[in-house]
């Protein structure tokens, strides 16, 4: 069985020392799938009402050093005045006209919960400098340009690099012997039942290869499976990782939303927010987090409604090869 694609980072003592990790483009692919347009877009918008004269828009552009101004009233989006519209107005002698007469109304817009991979495709396809961003209620919530994406990607890549460097730094003890046996991360996509369970099985195989005690492997695999299914069923997609270092194994599931309203309730046996369709597939029995808690030596859930969830299950490793 192959691991769910794209599996992102494989850290083992050999590869930490080498350059393989840094060259892995899958880290970037994972980021552009995980990050949403709303994580990147500018939300502090300079907007004008339909009645605003184009000369006011011109002045706003000069003051704010921007090249496009959305036309909106009470969140309702009507169009966009671009710098090209202003140049044409100056040439045509109608710079005092209201912007409603000359604004661009045939626009391509993005939705705030689209992954930024989608936004990048749009930038390539349409060659516009920016896209207005609407929410599910079709209200204007932001504007996105390629510079926004580059900025956030650089920040996130830098974080990822720091994380990898930290893992690399921890991997050598005083004798120069690696203490980090294994780290593996998998991307888990929402409702991807085609691949559900594959990451957990891959983790199980890796642990078997390292000849960990079978009972411990089973416990770690159970936690990995349940957390993988939770990501698939309940999150907007996320990452499942397994790391073994310093006599401890950790399985961590991270996602960027939608968050758990009541963590205590979610950790009770039999409670689930899964719908009938998911239940018909044998999931959503409300046993997932309970199972993880049962098998793990340490169990921790961090979540906030509207943001992400991180679940960590840790195991004391004895008898590792």
């Amino acid at each position, binding site marked *: 069985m192959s691991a769910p694609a794209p599996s992102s980072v494989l850290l083992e003592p050999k590869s930490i020392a080498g350059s393989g990790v840094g060259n892995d483009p899958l880290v970037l692919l994972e980021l552009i799938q995980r990050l949403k347009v709303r994580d990147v877009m500018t939300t502090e918008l300079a907007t004008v009402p339909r009645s605003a004269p184009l000369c006011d828009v011109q002045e706003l552009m000069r003051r704010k050093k921007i090249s496009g101004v959305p036309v909106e009233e009470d969140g309702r989006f009507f169009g966009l005045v671009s710098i090209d519209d202003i140049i044409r107005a100056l040439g045509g002698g109608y710079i005092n006209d209201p912007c409603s007469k000359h604004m661009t109304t045939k626009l391509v817009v993005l939705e705030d919960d689209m992954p930024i991979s989608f936004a990048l495709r749009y930038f390539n396809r349409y060659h516009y400098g920016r896209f207005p961003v609407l929410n599910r209620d079709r209200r204007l919530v932001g504007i996105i340009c390629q510079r926004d994406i580059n900025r956030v990607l650089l920040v996130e890549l830098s974080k990822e690099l720091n994380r990898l460097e930290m893992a690399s730094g921890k991997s050598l003890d005083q004798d120069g012997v690696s203490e980090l046996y294994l780290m593996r991360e998998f991307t888990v996509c929402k409702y991807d039942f085609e691949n559900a*369970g594959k990451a957990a*099985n891959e983790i199980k195989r890796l642990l078997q290869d390292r000849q960990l005690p079978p009972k411990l492997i089973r416990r770690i695999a159970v936690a990995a499976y349940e957390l993988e299914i939770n990501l698939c069923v309940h999150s907007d997609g996320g990452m499942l990782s397994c790391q073994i270092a310093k006599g401890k194994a950790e399985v961590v599931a991270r996602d960027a939303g939608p968050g758990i309203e009541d963590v205590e309730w979610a950790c009770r046996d039999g409670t689930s927010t899964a719908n009938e369709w998911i239940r018909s597939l044998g999931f959503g029995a409300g046993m997932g987090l309970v199972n993880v808690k*049962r098998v793990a030596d340490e169990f921790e859930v961090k979540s906030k409604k509207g943001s992400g969830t991180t679940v960590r299950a840790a195991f004391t490793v004895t008898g590792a090869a």
Partner: protein
Amino acid sequence: MKLRDIIDACGLEPVLVPDAEAEVSSAYTSDLLSDVVAHCTEKSVLITVQNHKNTVAVCTLVGAPAILIAHRREIPADMQEAAAREGVALLHTSDSQFAASCKVGSVLGIDPR
């Protein structure tokens, strides 16, 4: 006991049997995959109506060598492909989960009392 012996003794219909000599020592009956993950022991036959490829993934995870689909529910092609890939046997019976559990349990000599 060998998987072949259980198939013969219970009159099960083999749909896909990658290894008839696989060792079977127990059985577990459930349609909830988290329940299977939590309680199904290694070398068990899983008796279920859950005719989905994720059932194969769960059996691989817990080390169960065979899935017995009750009520002769259709086994989709992608489930068969997954089972072939993972070396998990797929069996059919027209019995209910309860009747199938009784038969398999009896052949295995399991007395839960």
